[in-house]
């Protein structure tokens, strides 16, 4: 607990899938209130990096320290409650209604009574304009609706930070707008956010810091102003030329 304003510290994180080395030693810190956008070419390890933070993928080596506590197989469940995650393919639970998706975790983890959880869920559903969908199954929702429900599902646990793994990559342009404005709103309310995305204009607008990954390493990081207007490395210059 030596440094109380750092939420998350990552030291020399490595991850291989068999012989395929995806992350080659990542050092990273995330402080409360920061909004970090992770960029990089495909195959650079962005998603794997994000997924290692809450152990969706178990790191091969390195340390992840959350609120002064080293993440291990033993405390990972507790850590995950504080690190909400939003997936590219939404991952709403198909056999549960929207309401059940929202209330399952808080009730099962004894964080809220069922009544309180349903009340909170209804508030959030009203907020995103989908109160009528409470009793519906995910199959009857559009992609954008699913993703917004997935975001408020993560919010149900009042996490300290939210991890977004390409949240708009599987959506149509109109839905992308809806999802991005919900994320923007969370950002404005001071939520700590880490997001892997290909939405460059959104990245510019929302980020307090941009991190660029290439071949499993962070090769450049800085404020959006520095990163987009004064890139330091050739690799980033080349990347920006292609995507902007």
């Amino acid at each position, binding site marked *: 607990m030596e440094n109380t304003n750092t939420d998350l510290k990552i030291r020399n994180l490595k991850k291989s899938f068999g012989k395929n080395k995806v992350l080659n030693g990542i050092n990273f810190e995330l402080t409360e209130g920061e909004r970090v956008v992770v960029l990089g070419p495909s195959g650079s390890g962005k998603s794997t990096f994000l997924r290692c933070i*809450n152990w*969706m993928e178990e790191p091969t080596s390195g340390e992840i320290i959350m609120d002064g506590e080293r993440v291990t197989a033993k405390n990972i*469940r*507790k850590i*995950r*409650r504080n690190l*909400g*995650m939003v*997936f590219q*393919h939404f*991952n*709403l*639970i*198909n*056999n*549960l209604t929207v309401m059940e998706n929202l209330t*399952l*975790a808080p009730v*099962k*983890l004894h964080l809220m009574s069922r009544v309180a959880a349903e009340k909170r869920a209804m508030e959030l559903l009203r907020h995103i304009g989908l109160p009528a*969908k409470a*009793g*519906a*199954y*995910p*199959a*009857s929702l559009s992609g954008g609706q699913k993703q917004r429900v997935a975001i408020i*599902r*993560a919010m149900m*646990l009042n996490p300290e930070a939210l991890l977004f793994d390409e949240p708009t990559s599987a959506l149509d342009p109109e839905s992308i707008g809806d999802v991005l404005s919900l994320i923007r709103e969370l950002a404005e309310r001071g939520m700590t956010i880490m997001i892997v995305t290909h939405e460059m204009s959104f990245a510019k607008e929302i980020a307090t810091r941009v991190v660029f990954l290439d071949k499993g390493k962070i090769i450049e990081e800085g404020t959006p102003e520095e990163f987009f207007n004064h890139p330091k490395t050739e690799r980033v210059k080349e990347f920006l030329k292609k995507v902007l």
Partner: protein
Amino acid sequence: MDNFFSKLVELFSTQEYIDSLLHGFLLTIQVSYFALLIGLVLGTVIALVDTARRSKWMVLPKFICRVYVGIIRGTPMALQLFIMFFVIFAIKGFPSIITAIIAFGLNSAAYMAEVIRGGILSVDKGQTEAGLALGLSNLTIFMKIVAPQAIKNIIPALGNEIITVLKETAIVSMVGMYDLNMAAKDIGSGQNMASYIVPMFVAALFYLATIYLITFIVKRIEKGLRRSDLRTEE
């Protein structure tokens, strides 16, 4: 044809024949029912061991399950039945119905295990990840997320297995048990009836009707479980 119908009338108006058929039918149902029960329980256990995460404690159980399923699926049911009757339970006075139930139960377990394993593996990994990301325990994830979705995928194949076992129990007549199949043969070879075609036709109708009923029930269950797939709202 006249002969066929007169024999049919004769069969259904002779109490002895009716008793024989019902007696045989009851045995077929009993063996199938209890064998399927054993198969379902043991098959579930095998499937759970097989799909469990790899760890040093699971190496041996996983190996045993693989070998078991391999042997059962790799040898004829009739041979397994013979081994049960003439080797393992070759004990004088041991009730043959128990032996038959065990033989079919152990056989069905291997097939059910494969069906259930396939059902569990067919659930999208993202569903488990959703549960993990929410901090849920593995047990909760299995019970609330994976199992309900797996069951939906399993039911049609399970219905198939029920039908297979029901029909396959007919081979107990090979070890002299009096099931529906045996009853048909017995009635047909009797001096009074002197016709195989009629009792066998009736036995076939019994099997058909039972299987039709099972198919109907399975379809109903399937429909109920598919509720969450509907794109329309409640």
